[in-house]
């Protein structure tokens, strides 16, 4: 990856993080969850997927399905940066006059399908990938999953079926931040050795640092990973990445900050001193 591309990705991801932090007030959003997926989402839309504003509904576009619906602020922020969505709509977050709320919905151009109930979109993405195979379309189909979401049995059904139908045009990306809603994954339902689990189900698996664009580029430069196998990319990430005051904390999944805290966090994002956060985490689930 050349240095201009890398600089552009980093600058875009920084601005997406700003959008997420600004949405983390007046009702809040899933801040910690979204920040862990930010680099993945930015990388996938800007470098990996063949899709732009003119091809959002083109049957020959690539697809991204966000099964881990909590991360949708990372998509909104990316859509703003791509020019698909005016930034003002983010200020309408949670207004019934708009459709920008806590989970993805198809009223936002770029969102392929609604989600929120976990363990659904691996199967929906599988259906799309299967149709691309049946029709001979070369489209890539990506589905982003949370690691906590892997508790759902339907995820594993989809892995088995995708493997049975040799869907090497389908990529499951696991946002592996090691937390589920309230606690670390390994304390509740341990997932490791995760790569081995997917491999045992028949997938071709790679594992990378999900905050390192060069590593993502290297991992995805050869796609499919193996002919005739479902691709699984386990991206190791950190909940709240970019904000040391909330990073890798169980209680910063969902955040509803005061406006002063938001200002302080944006300062922190840009390398100023660490923010002091007094707002309690609102546990929605």
């Amino acid at each position, binding site marked *: 990856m050349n240095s201009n591309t890398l600089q552009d990705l980093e600058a875009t991801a920084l601005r997406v993080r700003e959008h997420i932090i600004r949405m983390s007030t007046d009702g809040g959003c899933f801040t910690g969850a979204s920040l862990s997926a930010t680099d993945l989402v930015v990388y996938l839309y800007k470098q990996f997927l063949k899709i732009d504003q003119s091809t959002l509904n083109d*049957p020959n576009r690539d697809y991204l399905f966000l099964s881990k619906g909590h991360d949708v602020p990372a998509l909104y922020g990316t859509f703003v940066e791509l020019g698909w969505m005016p930034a003002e709509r983010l200020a309408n977050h949670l207004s019934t006059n708009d459709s920008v709320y806590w989970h993805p919905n198809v009223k936002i151009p770029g969102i*392929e*399908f*609604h989600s929120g*109930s976990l*363990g*659904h*979109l*691996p*199967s*929906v*993405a*599988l*259906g*799309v*990938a*299967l*149709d*691309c*195979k*049946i*029709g001979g379309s070369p489209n890539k189909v990506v589905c982003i999953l949370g690691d906590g979401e892997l508790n759902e*049995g*339907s995820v594993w*059904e*989809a892995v*088995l*079926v995708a493997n*049975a*139908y040799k869907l090497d045009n389908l990529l499951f990306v696991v946002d592996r931040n090691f937390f589920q809603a309230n606690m670390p994954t390994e304390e509740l339902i341990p997932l490791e050795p995760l790569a081995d689990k997917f491999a045992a189900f028949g997938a071709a698996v790679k594992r990378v640092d999900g905050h390192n664009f060069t590593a993502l580029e290297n991992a995805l430069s050869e796609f499919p990973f193996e002919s005739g196998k479902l691709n699984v990319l386990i991206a190791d990430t950190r909940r709240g990445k970019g904000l040391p005051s909330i990073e890798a904390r169980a209680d910063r999944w969902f955040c509803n900050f005061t406006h002063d805290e938001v200002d302080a966090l944006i300062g922190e994002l840009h390398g100023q001193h660490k923010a002091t956060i007094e707002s309690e985490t609102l546990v929605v689930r």
Partner: protein
Amino acid sequence: MTYEDLLTQTALADDRVVVMTAENRALVRNMPQNLGNRFIDTGITEQCMIGAAAGLALRGRTPVVHALAAFLSMRAFEFIRTDVGIGNLPVKLSSFVPGFLSDGNGPTHQAIEDVALMRGIPHMQVFCPADEQDLLQMLPTIWASPAPSYVRITTRPATYQHKQPFEIGCAEVVSMGSDITLLVYGMLFEQALIAADILRHAGYSVGLVNMRSLKPIDEHTILDVCLSSDLVVTIEDHFLTGGLYSIVAETLLKYRKTANVHPIALKGKWYKPGRLNEVLEHEGFTGAQMAHTIQTEMIENLAD
């Protein structure tokens, strides 16, 4: 013409149609060689099959999806509600061995709350053909519609020649009667024909309606028979809650009307498994038993 012939013919004429199953191939045994990669068996994964059907529908396909009624309607319920219902996608659910047709399987396989579940989902249409002839008459219209649908499949041979062409939202009025009208759907239509004959021989004026389309429902016919018959009887192999009896009650209340309505339905327990004829007898759903029940109801409740 069988169900499989019709589906094969439809799928070969329209390449949007894909046929899916969660390893329930009884109705679609010959599909793999006829349809090639448009036949998709996901194995015993009702949830994954429904999600994948939604994905296929997003790409413009019309998936006709097969599974045992109990597992399709309940195991995959949230996937149907969330992926197909919220998405309002043209996924066509073929629900096999519903109600009493699961005769010997036992309560795990008894889909007797499926109508209540499915009609609770916005956009979802619900159809219950009486027999194979009725089924084959209904399916082309149902498959051609852009709406998601749930069809209680029955392939039992017809004992009545259905003459009224099928229309979504319309019941088939077999006869009108001023004393008693039987409202029925699905495989019990056959027994309702027998019951109606017995009641006619006992001197009553008897109406009989094959409801066919439970959602959308034929409100006009319900109101018509409720206003023109002394007693209306709803007959269904379904729990009392949420099925036809509930639909009739909701319809009457919506129009501020009342009527004498007697439900024949499963009340609060799963039915005793066995051979179909013996199950009907044991549960009191043969034509003769229902006629007897209805006569008693006429004498006891409508005496004055």
